[in-house]
């Protein structure tokens, strides 16, 4: 009986180990970003940021590429899932950058998410607001959309596609 007790205790420890992996994987703060450009919705899972942060060098980490068409509006939906025993309070700021210069503030607000609750934020980015006045449809542009939330930073590289067929002005026929 006594020798079996040690075996059961060892098995209990093993079960505890498995439980720790499952529990620890579930508990935490998880953010999912949905980006709709054109008719496509892209979902950026929390795993993406986690893998990027570990696998790539600092210079390019945490970047996700999104492409959009010339003067298109892009819809963002950001879901924050607080799977922790305490509430989460932080400031969230969404900005657009190009060459280390801030071009646009898209969102700035305070977040307060209670324990095991979710929050969803939505905003729209009009790429026309980002493009310079002298820009032409044949040119492509790249911008960085940065989401700062507490200590977290998420970066998206926004690529604005050039028009395949340049717009032509048709002269008005004169009588």
């Amino acid at each position, binding site marked *: 009986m006594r020798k*079996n007790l040690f*075996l059961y205790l060892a098995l209990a*420890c093993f079960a*505890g180990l498995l439980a720790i*992996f499952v*529990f*620890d994987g579930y508990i935490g703060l998880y953010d999912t970003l949905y980006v709709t450009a054109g008719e496509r919705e892209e979902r950026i899972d929390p795993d993406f940021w986690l893998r990027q942060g570990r696998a790539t060098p600092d210079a390019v980490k945490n970047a996700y590429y999104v492409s959009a068409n010339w003067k298109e509006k892009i819809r963002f939906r950001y879901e924050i899932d607080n799977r922790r025993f305490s509430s989460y309070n932080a400031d969230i700021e969404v900005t657009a950058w190009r060459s280390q210069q801030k071009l646009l503030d898209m969102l700035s607000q305070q977040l307060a998410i209670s324990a095991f609750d979710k929050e969803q934020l939505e905003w729209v980015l009009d790429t026309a607001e980002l493009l310079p006045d002298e820009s032409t449809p044949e040119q492509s542009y790249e911008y960085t959309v940065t989401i700062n939330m507490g200590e977290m930073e998420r970066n998206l590289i926004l690529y604005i596609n050039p028009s395949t067929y340049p717009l032509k002005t048709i002269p008005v026929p004169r009588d």
Partner: protein
Amino acid sequence: MKLEFILYGFGILFCLAGIGYLAAEYVRYLSEVGKLVALLLTTGMLGFLGKYFQELGW
């Protein structure tokens, strides 16, 4: 007979390597508290397993 033992040895080695690899992959994503608890549980598991084999007379 000897060949069988060599094959058992290889099997055990591959099992341990597989478990080690999976554990290393999972542990990377554990929180600090999770790592500590996992370490304590692993120590307990190996300790109790050792005690069990000792009781068996190994």
